[in-house]
């Protein structure tokens, strides 16, 4: 599996993401945001966490206009896989590759802790390694993770089984406790919690490993 991790000015989880992908067996390249093309043959593009462009204007809004974001859109429109974590989720929403928007946490505080998530759908290359209904513990670290979707969108996400993860104890006010959502073709996942921060016993937990391994399994056999 060939993976690319996009690096924006202000990204700070890019190397963690690369390590998590490599640990699952992926061949990883880092791609600077000014590159207008992704390396050839890339199967999955990861958009990492951080504070791209200092969160100026809106989180992810400037990054969504970077040259690499056009390449990312092409990749996804061709049926490619993409994973956006934290700021990466915000970028995917700003590019329009995922619906909804992430607003300031309802409690106005930066939330940094491990939270329990319920796997709401195991029907994706990212979540196949879990069983629907499983509880996993994954760290969150964000100020703008309050996922906002109107009733129409929520109904659509529920009907199409596109809610990947929900919070057991909502830390940020997200609609319907949503922690992660899938695109309509189920090949793009955006989530606020950081699976790349729990892939090694030294991290204090390994519940994120199943995501990278499942993705690897799916893409190697494909």
């Amino acid at each position: 599996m060939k993976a690319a991790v996009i690096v924006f000015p202000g990204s700070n989880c890019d190397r963690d993401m690369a390590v998590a992908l490599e640990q699952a067996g992926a061949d990883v390249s880092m791609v600077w945001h000014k590159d207008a093309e992704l390396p050839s043959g890339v199967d999955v593009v990861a958009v990492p966490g951080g504070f791209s462009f200092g969160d100026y204007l809106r989180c992810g809004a400037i990054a969504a206009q970077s040259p690499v974001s056009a390449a990312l859109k092409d990749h996804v429109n061709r049926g490619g896989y993409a994973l956006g974590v934290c700021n990466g989720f915000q970028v995917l929403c700003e590019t329009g590759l995922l619906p909804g928007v992430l607003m300031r946490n309802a409690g106005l505080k930066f939330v940094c802790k491990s939270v329990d998530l319920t796997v709401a759908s195991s029907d994706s290359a990212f979540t196949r390694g879990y069983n629907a209904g499983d509880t996993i513990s994954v760290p969150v670290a964000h100020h703008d993770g309050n996922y906002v979707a109107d009733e129409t969108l929520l109904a659509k996400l529920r009907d199409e089984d596109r809610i990947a993860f929900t919070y057991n104890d909502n830390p940020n006010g997200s609609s319907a406790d949503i922690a992660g959502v899938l695109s309509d073709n189920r090949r793009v996942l955006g989530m606020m919690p950081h699976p790349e921060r729990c892939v090694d016993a030294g991290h204090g937990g390994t519940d994120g490993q199943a995501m990278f391994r499942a993705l690897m399994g799916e893409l190697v056999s494909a």
Partner: protein
Amino acid sequence: MKARVHIMLKNGVLDPQGEAVRHALGTLGFDGVEGVRQGKVIELDLAGDDKSAAEAEVAQMCEKLLANTVIESYQVEIV
């Protein structure tokens, strides 16, 4: 020519920052503040002097970047 863009959260979108400001005003003794909505103002210096063309172009800028129209509405003012 200057354009001034006002960006506000749409009605019905909960504004946690506005709520916090309302709370703080109450703490300071300003009673009777029933609601606070916080938005942003962006000023642009523009070349050219065709007001209606500028207005249309700034609206495009809002649609593409300055506002997230899922949750925000905008108003363009040429000054």
